[in-house]
């Protein structure tokens, strides 16, 4: 029942807004030849970005799973950070490292080596891997942690080699989790706009989202915008269908939840391999973020009061959106175990074009209220919907395992309703719930653009204020606001993630 309501709400938001735009336009419009080029570039870059992120995440997640070292917990937490950065902040961080005037090129020049350019398709992929490698790593790490420790012990006592462990335990787990992680990233990259444009180097890097932007703003061709929005949804469904066929459920059975620490596999080669994977990933993720902080942090204390107010507003929006996301995600995840369509419904917001979403909502709500008065509620609703797919993706593997391992026991005990939620579901899902809440909160902090039509500068959120500072030439203040945004986003993420981990322990 709750799941059906949640699914309906999401469908109404994603398809309803698209319908509202098409209805206002009086139908769908023909696509231009340039749009097809944009569609091809969009799909290609998303394929490469998602595949690279997912594959690179395997050695990193495996190394993090089987090694223990000081700072491991902090590093895993930090893994959530790039994903939640607003695009403009992340791009600035990446440019500080990989840009023409970045650290990398300065280093290469010192060594007398030729400079490398970040601008072009390679830059788009680099940025998308920066955003999504950590997400993939976290999703895979959860998969690893979901394999009962007893299975690894059995493998060890049977004298499994690392490759045997891989083919009997890790391989099946990857087969179950990797397609889902890949799909989530593929879909994120599908709607990329600012990153693809800024680092893409020019019109060759036009994405569907930019074409929608052009249709709305340059041509005011709502019919074409609706068609492009529909094209995005169609691509999403095609990708979903493809991954559904590949992903296979894993069947490890339930464990005893022992917190036993596994002995890491011996051998210098494996050790070096894991160390390199962790070090490279950590440097790749941390250095650009450190660059943003280094530039902005010193000026945070002297930021104008308006920025702090905006920060408080953003925090309130993020908390409200998080509550809403979880309220939607949990019933959907539980229902999706039995019926795939709930998973599809919960994934759909991922491909909703923010512009179509905003415009559609505007058209739907405009007759009832002045848009400015709805600024914050709309922000909360849209942020919650956009965070839902990630929350769902985080919860799904754990709910599947939960149902497979405990459903019969719970049924035989007559455990239903609230008691089932309190005694079985919440404790078993604490860790992914915490992670999902963290993602939702941080994503909502950093979100921007969806609500341009509703935005009320008197109630500006922190990302909007960041843009206002940049627009007023105040780049130093903007850098400070970016640092503040990063610290707050990450703080929320870390807090929820910790709550989840502690509740689980």
């Amino acid at each position, binding site marked *: 029942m709750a799941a059906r309501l949640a699914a309906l709400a999401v469908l109404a938001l994603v398809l309803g807004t698209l319908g509202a735009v098409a209805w*206002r336009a009086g139908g769908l419009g023909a696509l231009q030849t*340039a749009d097809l080029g944009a569609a091809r570039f969009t799909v290609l870059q998303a394929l490469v970005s998602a595949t690279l992120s997912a594959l690179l995440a395997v050695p990193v997640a495996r190394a993090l799973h089987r090694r223990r070292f000081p700072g491991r917990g902090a590093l895993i937490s930090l893994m959530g950070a790039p994903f939640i950065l607003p695009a*403009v902040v992340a*791009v*600035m961080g990446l*440019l*500080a490292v990989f*840009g*023409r*005037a970045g650290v990398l090129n300065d280093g290469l020049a010192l060594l007398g080596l030729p400079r490398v350019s970040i*601008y072009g398709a390679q830059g788009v992929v680099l940025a998308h891997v920066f955003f999504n490698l950590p997400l993939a790593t976290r999703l895979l790490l959860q998969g690893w942690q979901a394999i009962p420790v007893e299975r690894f012990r059995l493998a060890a006592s049977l004298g499994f080699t690392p490759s045997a462990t891989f083919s009997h335990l890790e391989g099946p787990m990857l087969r179950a989790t990797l397609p889902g992680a890949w799909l989530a990233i593929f879909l994120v990259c599908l709607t990329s*706009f*600012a990153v693809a*444009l*800024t*680092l*893409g*180097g*020019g*019109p*060759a890097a*036009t994405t569907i989202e930019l074409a929608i*932007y*052009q249709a709305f*703003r*340059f041509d*005011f061709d709502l019919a074409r915008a609706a068609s492009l929005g529909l094209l995005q949804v169609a691509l999403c469904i095609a990708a979903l269908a493809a991954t559904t066929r590949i992903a296979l459920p894993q069947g490890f059975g339930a464990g005893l939840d022992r917190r036993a620490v596994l002995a890491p596999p011996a051998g210098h080669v494996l050790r070096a391999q894991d160390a390199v994977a962790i070090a490279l990933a950590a440097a790749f993720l941390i250095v650009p973020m450190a660059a943003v902080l280094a530039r902005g942090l010193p000026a945070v204390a002297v930021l*104008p009061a*308006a920025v702090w107010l905006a920060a408080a507003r953003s925090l*309130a929006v993020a*908390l*409200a959106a998080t*509550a809403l996301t979880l309220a939607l995600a949990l019933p959907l995840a539980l229902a999706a175990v039995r019926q795939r369509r709930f998973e599809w419904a919960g994934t759909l917001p991922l491909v909703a074009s923010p512009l179509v979403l905003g*415009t559609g909502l*505007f*058209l739907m709500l*405009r007759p009832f209220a002045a*848009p*400015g*008065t709805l600024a*914050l*509620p709309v922000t909360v609703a849209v942020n919650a919907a956009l965070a839902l797919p990630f929350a769902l993706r985080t919860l799904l593997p754990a709910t599947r395992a939960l149902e497979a391992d405990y459903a019969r026991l719970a049924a035989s005990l007559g455990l239903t309703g609230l008691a089932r939620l309190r005694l079985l579901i919440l404790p078993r899902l604490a860790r992914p719930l915490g992670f999902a809440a963290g993602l939702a909160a941080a994503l909502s902090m950093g979100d921007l653009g969806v609500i*341009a*039509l509703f*935005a*009320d*500068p008197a*109630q*500006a959120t922190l990302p*909007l*204020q960041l*843009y*206002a*500072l*940049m*627009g*007023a*030439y105040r*780049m130093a203040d*903007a850098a400070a606001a970016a640092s503040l945004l990063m610290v707050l986003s990450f703080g929320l993420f870390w807090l929820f993630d910790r709550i989840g981990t502690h509740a689980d322990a």
Partner: protein
Amino acid sequence: MRPFLMLAGLLCATATAFVAQAQDKPVLTVLTYDSFISEWGPGPVIEEVFERDCGCDLRFVGAGDGAALLARLLLEGARTEADVVLGLDTSLTAQAAATGLFAPHGLAPAPDLPVPYDDPLFTPYDWGWFAFVHDTTRLAVPPADFLALGASDVKIVIQDPRSSTPGLGLLLWVKAAYGERAAEVWEGLADNIVTVTPGWSEAYGMFLEGEADMVLSYTTSPAYHVIAEGDVTKEAASFAEGHYLQIEVAGRLVGSDQPALADRFLAFLHSPAVQGTIPETNWMYPATISPAGLPLAFDWLILPVKSLLMSPEEALAARGPALAEWRAALAR
């Protein structure tokens, strides 16, 4: 349980903030772009001075940037709550006029524009020349025109004409200066362009970080650095072809329920109180220079040899084909 209580409290606080706005005074709603009404734009000062003796409540509604403003207006049509729209430029006014939503303003032409501009529906409040800005410590001698820029290895960052008003301005600049040869000019520029950003802010930020030698902005941009930062290293390059103008205008809507207040506001835009604050908040030239004159730093800015500007109709007709040329030349 406690986090949920806190959350509920926050939600209630937000909700009450929406409700507590009931007032008896007539409300004048001005739809404009975001940066006009940000803390650092002209909006707050204008609101304070106008409300001093209008006996009204002046409410600004932000709608992104200039192009988003037009999209919003087209979307809402006659149902818009706005009485005045402020912030369109001449590359957008033809489309705006065609909606039939605007009423004549009846004001005299503004005196201090570099070209004659007299539109019955729109009154200008500020203007500026597009220009490429550079840092003199990194680029001592900037190229003298688009051809020299194309032939040089100077790196530039520009904005996308499909998503940004300055980006569209550059498109029209090249078209106005070179006409049929515009595609050739863009082909020459292709290898100079580091990247194309969605908006002005990203481009300008990247330039300041050293990602490019020059950035598409305004001739007035260096004044910000002088006045706010005491930094004299930023300069705009004067191009021999002349510089394209951006004239920002305001207009009253036919459907306004406060026509008298709206007209009063449009006239007020030309008062010294508003025009005097434009140079150092919007960083543009005022349409009517206030008696106090321009800030000192403006004396030091380049003055283009020639002002280029297409009529609104020409601009509307030119931008589709010009965009196709631009894409073809750069999409390699």
